[in-house]
């Protein structure tokens, strides 16, 4: 219990330290989206989203449910490709590389842009195999020792190693919800992505597990560009440096997190932050 309490306390501290607007202004731009639209069949889900996402920082997308924030997130690593009938328009660039370029291999793209999902979804395999899966399919480890190193360091980075080091061969589905989600983060890290997308990663977790994940996100931003979708404004305020507010498929307002929460320009953003839009 003491350990947990300490963690929560630490989280508080990190939150305070991230509240520095200057922290993000000098960041280079990593991802650029321009006029992104998404149609599901005849229904238009996104209306021309344009946004820049800074390198090695946490960008959060907030907004009421069904506002298109998850849809946009799934455009960034082309997960919408797997949905029948979904069409994406506009351009998204990762380091000047158009990710919807027909010559670009989506497999390669997803190795560079990892993703963590709303519900923890470990594969029905052992903890070790879960983490090793990505490096294995991409051929990133040349030997068993290489692989061991990747798995262990990924689990360390995800803050899970100490908890599972004695049972790496047990099924990943046997872990608690929060541990499962950190396993999924470790699994994503193991591929060595440059960008990590997180789709409401804490929505299925209890507050303590949420706090641990938030702390982890804050640590990861030193090495990764992170984009997180969240329905919790507090979470966005705690972990992100940049925030974008979505409503009804439109990007209403974006900016430094502190500005968005303290001086929202747009009326709709104000309403949402004050709890008038659910």
């Amino acid at each position, binding site marked *: 219990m003491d350990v947990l309490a300490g963690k929560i306390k630490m989280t508080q501290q990190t939150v305070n330290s991230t509240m520095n607007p200057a922290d993000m202004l000098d960041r280079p731009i990593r991802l650029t989206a321009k006029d992104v639209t998404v149609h599901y069949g005849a229904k238009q889900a996104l209306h021309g989203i344009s946004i820049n996402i800074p390198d090695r920082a946490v960008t959060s997308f907030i907004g009421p449910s069904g506002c298109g924030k998850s849809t946009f997130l799934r455009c960034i690593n082309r997960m919408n490709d797997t949905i029948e009938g979904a069409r994406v328009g506009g351009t998204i660039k990762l380091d000047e590389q158009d990710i919807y370029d027909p010559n670009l291999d989506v497999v390669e793209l997803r190795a560079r842009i990892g993703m963590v999902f709303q519900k923890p979804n470990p*594969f029905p395999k052992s903890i070790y195999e879960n983490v090793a899966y990505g490096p294995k399919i991409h051929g990133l480890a040349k030997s068993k020792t290489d692989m061991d190193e990747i798995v262990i360091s990924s689990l360390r980075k995800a803050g899970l190693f100490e908890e599972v080091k004695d049972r790496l061969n047990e099924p990943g589905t046997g872990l608690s919800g929060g541990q499962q989600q950190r396993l999924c983060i470790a699994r994503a890290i193991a591929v060595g992505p440059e960008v990590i997308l997180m789709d409401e990663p804490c929505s299925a977790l209890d507050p303590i597990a949420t706090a641990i994940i938030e702390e982890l996100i804050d640590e990861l931003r030193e090495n990764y560009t992170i984009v997180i979708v969240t329905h919790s404004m507090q979470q966005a305020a705690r972990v992100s440096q940049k925030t974008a507010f979505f409503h009804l498929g439109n990007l209403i307002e974006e900016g430094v997190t502190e500005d968005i929460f303290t001086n929202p320009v747009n009326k709709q953003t104000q309403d949402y932050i004050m709890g008038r839009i659910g």
Partner: protein
Amino acid sequence: MNNLVIAALLLVLIGLAFQTGWSKSGSLVTAKGVRVHSRQQYHGSLVAIWAIIPALVALALWGWFGGDVTHNYIVGQIPTDTVLALDQVGLNATIARIRALASGYGVAGDVLPYEQAAGDALRSFNFLTFVGTIVVAGALGLGGLFLARNRIDVRLRARNEVERVINLLLLACSAVAILTTAGIVGSLVTEAFKFFTFVSPLDFFFGTVWSPLNGSTIPGEYGSYGLLPLLVGTLMITAIAMLVAVPVGLMAAIYLSQYAHRNFRAVAKPIIEVLAGIPTIVFGFFALTTVGPFLRDAGGTVGLGINATSALTAGVVMGIMIIPFVSSLSDDILNQVPRTLRDGAYGLGATKSETIRNVLLPAALPGIVGAFLLAVSRAVGETMIVVLAAGNSPVLKGNPFEPVATITVSIVNQLTGDTDFAGPQSLVAFALGLTLFVLTLCLNIFALFIVRKFREQYE
């Protein structure tokens, strides 16, 4: 004719009873102006039920025992010494003549005086019993009607009583399934036990020679009944069938559910499922006339001696038959694997086939194993394909290119429809049936258990 009269009278009784209940309960409303518990049609139905059940019971009793009573009456009309002089066939012929005389059709040839007398007596007896039955049934029915009519009251819960009767009927219907199982188990076990009085279970279950002497009536000489050649034949054909059905069925399911365009799936899926609706006798004919000769010729060109009717022929065609079974079950199972797992693999940059092979299939494995066991159980119990195409050679051997016999084939061979249940030659069919039943039951229970566990895992 008589049956039509009775049916008509019963309909009249139902109508009368319903009408009585209807109008009596209707008068309750007008007379007292209070709220009646049940609506009129329920009162009508209740009275009808009360009237029809005693009448039906009376008719059923006569239907059950009437034949014997009439028979005894006719025998009683024949002079005793004549009865004693006649054997069973002669007695039956005499009874038939008397019945013919009584019905007015007449008989060819001379009529003996006692025959004429008995015929006349039978005619009046038949008339009396017919009228008597109707009167008794009618009286009971009307009695029930009046009893029920007198019960009609504002507070009578007619609807609840009618519903209870409906409920009982429904319960009786669902008991039919239980009775069927009981009938299967009961008849298989009793007849199999009779068989085991001829042949010891050890010789049956572990015997390696199957050569029943059909038609032999010499006590003790009825051939040998070793199950093993049949079991081996059954398992060999099943294994070949699974070797065909599992890869094709599973890959077809994967392609249809993961790769195929919606329109292609909409066309291809029902066409494949057509295979499941084709009667097995058709597959048997196909195996016998087309697949068998083809395999024989194909084997000939590469120097393999394949018989036209062989375990291979039957197995391949049975495999074709089972493809839709495997593919639609696998399709269901694959669709039950949560989408999030697939997304997880795609998110790591796995290709579609990597996702399917490394994530989807391992996750679906228990369910798919269950589906395969169900398919195995179906293959084990399949009859017509093997009857036509397996060649029926109950010899213990391991060559799939030669004719074999299976449990089901031997059941058909041993029990050809004659009712002689006395010898082990036909009784063995029940011992084989019991083996088959237990085998498939275990497979099914195990498979359903696995599938259920699998479903619970992702619920």
